[in-house]
């Protein structure tokens, strides 16, 4: 990883000012409208809430009329849907998946378990609040939420995207130190992911005052460069 120098970081303003050119605003609105009408969804089905997704996707409730389709890889997905409890082992994979997704990306937590641990609140093996480890745009609470609620939640997400409110993916870059700190607390200080989040934050110009901190320092100390996987036949 490149060593990052705090002095040359431009601090991004929290809310983007409206552009002065009226045509640019129209264009932005159009982009957001199109974006909200064509979303690919990666469903990371960790728990029992997954059972409500087939009816929501297929002919009964038909998610596709909203322009939402399931997608098979994180690289091409826009929405990460996490349905149910995240055990600590799963959480690692969820974070890897989340970091692989291209921005802009939206996270939806379904079921009570992603909100507060749900019925597994006193279990040593499950993470409790999903939004400590990655920014969550929308929670759909319930145990489990009906497909109507899932569709309602997806519509809310579409509205949020249209109104330029679904910007929580920027939070991950701006507050990376906070999220990394919570991840390290759970996984130990040797935790690292293949994605260079700080480098991405620089490219997106989303370096904030909270991006770097004590936890990213630990990361930079322990981080090993990624090596290509050994191929064997």
């Amino acid at each position, binding site marked *: 990883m490149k060593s990052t120098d705090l002095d040359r970081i431009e601090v991004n303003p929290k809310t983007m000012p409206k552009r002065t050119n009226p045509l640019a605003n129209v264009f932005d609105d159009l982009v957001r409208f199109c974006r909200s009408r064509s979303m690919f969804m990666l469903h990371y089905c960790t728990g029992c809430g997954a059972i409500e997704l087939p009816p929501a996707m297929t002919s009964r409730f038909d998610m596709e009329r909203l322009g939402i389709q399931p997608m098979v890889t994180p690289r091409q997905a826009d929405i990460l849907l996490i349905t149910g409890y995240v055990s600590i082992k799963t959480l690692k994979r969820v974070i890897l998946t989340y970091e692989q997704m291209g921005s802009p990306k939206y996270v939806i937590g379904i079921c009570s378990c992603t*909100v*507060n*641990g749900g019925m597994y609140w*006193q*279990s*040593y*093996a499950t993470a*409790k609040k999903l939004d400590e480890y990655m920014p969550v745009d929308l929670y759909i609470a319930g145990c489990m939420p009906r497909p109507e609620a899932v569709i309602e939640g997806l519509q809310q997400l579409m509205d949020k995207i249209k109104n330029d409110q679904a910007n929580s993916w920027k939070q991950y870059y701006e507050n990376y130190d906070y999220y990394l700190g919570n991840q390290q*607390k759970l*996984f130990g200080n040797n935790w690292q992911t293949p994605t260079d989040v700080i480098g991405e934050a620089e490219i997106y110009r989303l370096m904030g005052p909270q991006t770097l901190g004590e936890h990213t320092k630990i990361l930079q100390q322990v981080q090993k460069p990624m090596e290509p996987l050994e191929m064997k036949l």
Partner: protein
Amino acid sequence: MNSAQSQSLNVLLQEIEGIQLTHQNQRRLRADISADALPALLALLRGRAGYVHLSAISCVDWIEDDQFELVYHLWSYETSILISAHIRVARDPGIYLSVFDIYTPAAFFERDIHEMFGLYFEGSPDMSKFILTEWDGPPPMRKDFDSEQWVMDNFTWQDYHPDWLKQIEQQGGGVVKSADSSRKSS
């Protein structure tokens, strides 16, 4: 099952010293034995009674007695009688013999018990981490591990009545009807 098979099984099991047999019903037999006699019992059952299937090994933590109870569930396709062999092992130092040489699948059960209870099996091929690869706390199924306390120490909780919900409630949203008001009986 026929009674001749059952009787011959009883006669066979009497060869083990200090065995206590309880017929819980026609197809369930409970055998309480000392920990030393267990390998002999298993070898006898596998070699001479057709008990080729070790379904599971379960462990119970009797913390008041300072003992672990190990239950070996054995199944025969010929007699169709489920035998559960119960033994007690001292909780400290918590070491027992592996039965891997008699039943190969025991390796998995023993590895799991080692991970969950911290009971070490001598002679088991692999005692490394099994499912909880990311866990370095105490064995979590022991009775002296307080899961709730551990969770309280390590996690924080979502606020149940946060500001944004109050805002929604002021606008007339949120939970408008109480659950009781929509019940038919009231």
